[in-house]
């Protein structure tokens, strides 16, 4: 049950993300690492989890082929339901989605995510693609899981632009806004895993990946790092998990590159 050699941060992230999915849950799946995490969970501890894709697909079984986008034809074949986006979004809107994944360019210590503008909106330094469904998932999913490459310029005290609301400037503020979803439950990075303080909604380091030090994480984090009293090393994938990941992403397209 020891992981195979050449373990990558992507593989650790995928495993950590998969373990956030409980059996039988309804998961709003993104592409890249989240998709592989969902599939890994299905093959291991959560065989009855259901995956939802914003283009209108609902699946209970993983696609038979590696996907580069959720619209790839293998994702339609074997799907339980192919419908309109508005139908799957209604499932989100009605509170039927337990977990949602999003990525982005920047995240802050309250779990707010920016995937729209680096620099001022009127004169951006970088125009990013935008929300897609990320803001919807962040607003409405029961628990939000954020996946991010851990670099100091990405983990910021406050993002330039809130595309997808986390706890805004604290749990109270999110609640006051009336957003129905539960907000961020975990921030899974290339270096570690954060939870969010039950009172304030601040990110708190829960675990560091194998071979990474807390100091290294502090250095790469743009806010004063809070570390859980129970901090530990992130569980590494079992050899079974790693084998599944490598079967799901044979070229290492998503799990053997720097970021999700």
């Amino acid at each position, binding site marked *: 049950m020891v992981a195979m050699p050449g373990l990558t941060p992507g593989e650790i992230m995928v495993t950590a993300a998969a373990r956030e999915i409980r059996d039988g849950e309804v998961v709003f799946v993104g592409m890249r690492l989240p998709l592989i995490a969902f599939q890994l969970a299905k093959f291991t501890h959560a065989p009855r989890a259901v995956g939802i894709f914003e*283009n209108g697909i609902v699946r209970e079984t993983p696609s038979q082929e590696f996907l580069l*986008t959720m619209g790839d*034809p293998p994702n339609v074949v074997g799907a339980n339901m192919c419908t*309109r986006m*508005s139908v799957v979004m209604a499932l989100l809107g009605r509170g039927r989605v337990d977990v949602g994944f999003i990525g982005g360019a920047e995240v802050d210590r309250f779990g707010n995510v920016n995937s*729209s503008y680096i620099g001022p909106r009127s004169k951006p330094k970088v125009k990013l693609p*935008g929300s897609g*469904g990320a803001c919807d998932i*962040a607003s409405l999913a029961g628990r939000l899981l954020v996946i991010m490459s851990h670099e100091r310029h990405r983990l910021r005290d406050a993002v330039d632009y809130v595309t997808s609301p986390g706890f805004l400037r604290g749990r109270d503020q999110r609640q006051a806004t009336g957003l129905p979803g539960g907000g961020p439950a975990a921030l899974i990075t290339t270096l570690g895993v954060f939870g969010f303080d039950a009172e304030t909604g601040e990110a708190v380091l829960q675990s560091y990946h194998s071979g990474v030090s807390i100091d290294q994480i502090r250095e790469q984090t743009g806010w004063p790092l809070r570390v859980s009293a129970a901090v530990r090393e992130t569980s590494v994938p079992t050899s079974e998990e790693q084998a599944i990941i490598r079967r799901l992403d044979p070229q290492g397209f998503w799990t053997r590159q720097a970021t999700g």
Partner: protein
Amino acid sequence: MELAEAIGRFVPDGSAVATGTCLESMIPFAAGHEMIRQRRRDLTLIGPIADILFDQLIGAGCVVRIQAAWVGNVSAGLGYAYRRATEQGVPRSIVVEDYTNYTVALALWAGAHGMPFVPVRSGPGSDIVKDHPGFAEIASPFGGGRVPVVKAVRPDVAIIAVQRADAGGNAHLWSHFGITEEAGLAADRIVLLAEEIVDQSVILSDPNRVLFPAFMVCAVVHCPGGCHPSPVQGHYGRDHPFYGEYHHATRTPDGMAVWLERWVYGVPDRAAYLEALGRERWDALRRLRSAPAAPVDYAW
């Protein structure tokens, strides 16, 4: 109708065009390329995630405004043309009205019903709704606080790809629908690009697969391969490398010009484009495994 005629007649300068509404699949690239060839100007593009189609139209200078949830290159990253236009005004500056997938779907849904607006479920707490002409908050007449709403969006035209249509505008579309139904119903008129033209009896044999009444369809264009590099279920797969190649080729304005010359200006129509793509590459994308739908009988 020929694609050039359909775009010429039904997508004039200044049109608000909804397209790429299935998200990553069934994107009518051929129609976008025809707009570029006809040097269409001042278009508003409306969609959720139209992959690199919007980037191409922006790079060619056709666009004045974007109303979308996401503009970029789904499998390869950012869209360089979109970045140049928004960051530097090259080739021209554009107005960006950001939506989310859910809110753009709802805005079009409201447009389809002739409603002025509709409540949304996301938006509060996000900077997307700040200083945005399409979002507001109102009091609920049934108690329970403020309710965010989005203003209706009504495209002039929706350009939609389908697997098969008859000459009269009845059509079948299968696989995931994205916001295609909402966009088509909200639009003043619909241009269809069909992989196949079939007899009306084929379409009428299965009226549940029809998304729009034929009287809303102003043009049916027979355009096989019209969605490449995006996939069409039952017809061809996604040409993944094409997106990476586009990404690398269009890093600079000069690169963009070369790319447009090669794939758009340099080819008169979709048939020539597919020839330029090469028989082998195109055939490989059409080598599919069959997955027939179970029979259905509308017996009466």
